[in-house]
């Protein structure tokens, strides 16, 4: 911006420095004729352009129908893509042609003289307003609402109660989610086998090599009434590291020979946290970058989570398969549930 003021355009420095009382309405600026207004050839050309645009639309629509009939989506990605492309192009040309033609028609061929429309107050006239207030007052007097107390009470009660007819079924249909304690328990019990997600194969401790990450579901998950609900709570990430790397655990003897199992539900807002980096033993949550140190009792080392991922105490059964010693010791998932206990 220039600091040099031009006195002819700068209102504040004009004359004695005072603002004028009112700015005059500058009115519409001078009408500038289009080429097509004086030159019939240009007018004809604009008309042809509009016709061409409408023709493009017609061809696009026909093209879309032809493409639908002749180029089915088929079985491969290539044919689906071609079918989508042709249908989309046809639709685009069909609609864009109409839109462009309409705008071009209005701009180049229709009357383009500027017009001003004054704004008027929207309120009704004073006499009409006085009459309306009078009618309302008369109605209230006629109903005698001020005197008949029981009638007034009945009316207010019925009006206040009616929304319940909609609200109660609406809230009631939210399902069986009213038993809050459901969210505190998972499927894990003493002796529940750890199995591979999604195949459900049980896991032998000897099969878990150092550096491994297993995604684990409890045995019998598919036989439950709501497998997905149970899975959402019970999923576990199981890793194995050199036992000498383990700095701490959430409970004495909760791991087995370097094999550790943690809830896969982030304690921040419940995202599945499973990005395990086997060299640093960090478990990273992809949603908000909460990072847990699997070698140090899943302690939070970075990010917004407030408490460690609950550790699942594990051991092996007689056949060498990994089983849970018990359920989770602390609530899984967002820390909200912890406050309810």
């Amino acid at each position, binding site marked *: 911006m220039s600091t040099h003021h031009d006195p002819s355009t700068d209102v504040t420095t004009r004359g004695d420095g005072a603002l004028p009382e009112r700015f005059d309405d500058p009115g519409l600026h001078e009408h500038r004729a*289009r080429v097509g207004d004086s030159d019939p050839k240009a007018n004809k050309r604009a008309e042809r352009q509009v016709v061409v645009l409408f023709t493009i639309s017609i061809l696009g629509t026909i093209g879309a129908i032809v493409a639908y009939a002749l180029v089915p989506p088929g079985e491969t990605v290539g044919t689906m893509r071609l079918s989508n492309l042709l249908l989309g192009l046809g639709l685009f040309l069909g609609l864009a042609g109409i839109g462009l033609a309409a*705008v071009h028609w209005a*701009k180049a061929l229709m009357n383009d003289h500027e017009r001003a429309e004054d704004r008027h107050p929207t309120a009704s006239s004073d006499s009409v307003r006085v009459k309306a207030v009078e009618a309302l007052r008369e109605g209230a007097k006629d109903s005698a609402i001020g005197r008949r107390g029981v009638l007034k009470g009945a009316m207010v009660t019925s009006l206040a109660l009616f929304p319940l007819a909609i609200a109660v079924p609406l809230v009631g249909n939210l399902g069986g989610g009213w038993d809050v304690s459901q969210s505190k328990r998972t499927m894990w019990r003493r002796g529940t086998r750890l199995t591979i997600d999604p195949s459900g194969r049980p896991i032998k401790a000897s099969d878990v090599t150092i550096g491994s990450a*297993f995604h684990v579901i409890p045995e019998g998950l598919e036989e439950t009434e709501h497998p997905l609900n149970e899975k959402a709570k019970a999923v576990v990430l199981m890793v194995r590291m050199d036992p000498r790397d383990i700095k701490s655990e959430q409970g004495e003897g909760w791991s087995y020979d370097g094999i550790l199992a943690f809830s896969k539900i982030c304690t921040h807002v419940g995202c599945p946290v499973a990005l395990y*980096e086997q060299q640093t033993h960090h478990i*990273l949550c992809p949603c908000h970058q909460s990072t847990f140190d699997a070698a140090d009792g899943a302690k939070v080392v970075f990010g917004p989570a407030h408490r460690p991922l609950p550790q699942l105490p594990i051991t092996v059964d007689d056949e060498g398969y990994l089983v849970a010693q018990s359920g989770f010791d602390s609530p899984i998932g967002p820390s909200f549930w912890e406050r309810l206990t």
Partner: protein
Amino acid sequence: MKALAARRHHRSAPVVLLLLALLLTGAVYAIAQPASADAAQAAASESDVAAGQKLFQANCATCHGVSAEGREAVDGGAGGPSLIGVGAAAVDFQVGTGRMPAQMNGAQIQAKPVQFDDEQIAQLAAYVASLGAGPSIPSEEQVDPSKGDAANGMALFRTNCAMCHNAVGAGGALSQGKWAPALTDTTPTHIYEAMLTGPQSMPVFNDANITPDEKRDIIAYLDEQRDGSPGGLTLGSLGPVGEGLWAWVVGIGLLIGASVWIGAKSS
């Protein structure tokens, strides 16, 4: 700036700006596209052990020790883990994708142009495999995408891989500057070897966790993704970032252009 300010009301300014934005988008995409990792498969042969040892001592011993016993990093110098028992698969993956020999320190070792030819990689793999038992290089049949079940592969990929490598294998960020690379150009053999050996941050997925057949299913699923998306451009399959960029720059740009055109007087 004055010249720019004078021209910003020019009638072609919106069009010029839109073209510049498109050009920028294209340039950013071209730069951000991952370089293709050209890798070749090698078949190990025991007669190559001696040749592999020579190659190893010339190229790898600085970090991994003269007999691959590993070496601690001292005073900022190079150090590397022991390679006894890592198997031929680890060598074929690390050298075959150009990650080894490593050229510089950083958050993680990067894939780069391969330094050795197929025969040399096979000799190195044979030497390291001779040091101790470890996973071997998978056969052609084990990694053949046409023999795998892509639907089952998707279920396995979603459970075990997608959190780091993205739902279609486009790659993603890890902590502290590390990242999970895109799998779009990785050969089936290298995908198999990576699952088997767990390079760098990646955990190991041994044959008890993901069976050889299931590994082939995953390869089949990733192979399907290479045909692209039936919906059209994938925009990198990175979700809201790529799609949002297009919607805001191209989509809103076109809307602005259209409203400027509709509002302008016909000449």
